[in-house]
């Protein structure tokens, strides 16, 4: 890839980094990253990856912008209220960096479309707020061998882990199975300090750029947790769980499942 003079100027602070350089910037520019959810986490991830010049950014989200989103979802502005989040996000990315190709999916990620959508990407970012989809992303990525970053935030806390399927502990190795519906509050119910989304999202964006460039050690086999009240960060070592239902010695999950939909199906069948 030959960079234009403008591109060399645009990416000069990356190119200056000894660990990145022109070669690393080329890897970033050739990178294809899918962001699931254009909300609190997806917003900073999308902005930083766009600024970094990631070649292709896919964004999937089935929601429209709500006024209550703007406290933390920094890619959406006041005039975007009621606009599909994927369109609002695409518009900002195009303005920030016309080098980036943006694919939008105005849809929910489901067991039916997950493998088809993720197959074209090098890395997946989980920026979703609910556990059925978090487990779906995990299982789809493990099945497809796609690396991904899990991120979660609630109130004043955040957590992240990067998963390299087949090599490192997956989300299910640590959390086993989704909690019962509504047992764990979501941000929409319990609240979240807006800036926490920025802290966690930029950690996820950093992991993407590290993965694409091969720089440093990824956040694998350790769960990063932080609490904003104390500003304490902690790395908890975790390891591949041999009993894991999706990547353990005897996996029992061979097909992707929409947990909430599966429950509905059982109800209608009986």
């Amino acid at each position, binding site marked *: 890839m030959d960079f234009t003079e403008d591109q060399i100027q645009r990416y000069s602070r990356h190119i200056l980094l000894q660990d990145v350089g022109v070669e690393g910037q080329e890897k970033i520019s050739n990178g294809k990253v899918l962001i699931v959810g254009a*909300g609190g986490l997806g917003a900073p991830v999308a902005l930083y990856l766009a600024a970094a010049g990631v070649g292709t950014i896919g964004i999937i989200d089935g*929601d429209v912008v709500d006024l209550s989103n703007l406290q933390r979802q920094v890619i959406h502005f006041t005039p975007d209220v009621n606009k599909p989040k994927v369109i609002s996000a695409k518009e900002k990315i195009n303005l920030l960096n016309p080098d980036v190709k943006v694919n939008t999916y105005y849809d929910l990620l489901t067991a039916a479309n997950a493998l088809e959508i993720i197959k074209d990407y090098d890395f997946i970012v989980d920026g979703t707020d*609910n556990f059925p989809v978090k487990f779906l992303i995990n299982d789809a990525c493990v099945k497809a061998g796609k690396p991904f970053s899990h991120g979660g935030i609630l109130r004043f806390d955040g957590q992240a882990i990067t998963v390299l399927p087949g090599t490192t502990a997956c989300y299910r190795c640590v959390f086993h199975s989704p909690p019962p519906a509504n047992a764990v509050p979501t941000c929409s119910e319990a609240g979240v300090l807006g800036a926490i989304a920025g802290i966690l999202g930029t950690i996820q964006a950093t992991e993407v750029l590290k993965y694409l460039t091969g720089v440093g050690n990824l956040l694998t086999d350790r769960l990063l947790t932080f609490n904003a009240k104390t500003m304490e960060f902690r790395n908890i070592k975790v390891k591949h769980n041999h009993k894991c239902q999706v990547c353990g010695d005897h996996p029992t999950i061979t097909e992707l499942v929409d947990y909430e939909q599966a429950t509905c199906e059982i109800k209608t069948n009986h």
Partner: protein
Amino acid sequence: MLTTIAKIMGSILVNGKAQEVELPVSLIELIKKNNVEQPEMVSIQINGEFVDRSAFETTQINDNDEVDFLYFMGGGSRC
């Protein structure tokens, strides 16, 4: 003859922080002691090994154990 069993104090790490506990103590008692609101919503490892949720009641904590409570955390966008 006295048959009272003396409580032994043990020192463990809970989420990286030192905690003094009376031994013997079961994992479920430790969960209560640490005010985990919903024990079914936490993943637990002891000395780096995950504990099956079904074994929370029967698992005993030993002196110098490192216990990590890992909480489910959502956030982000409905998708």
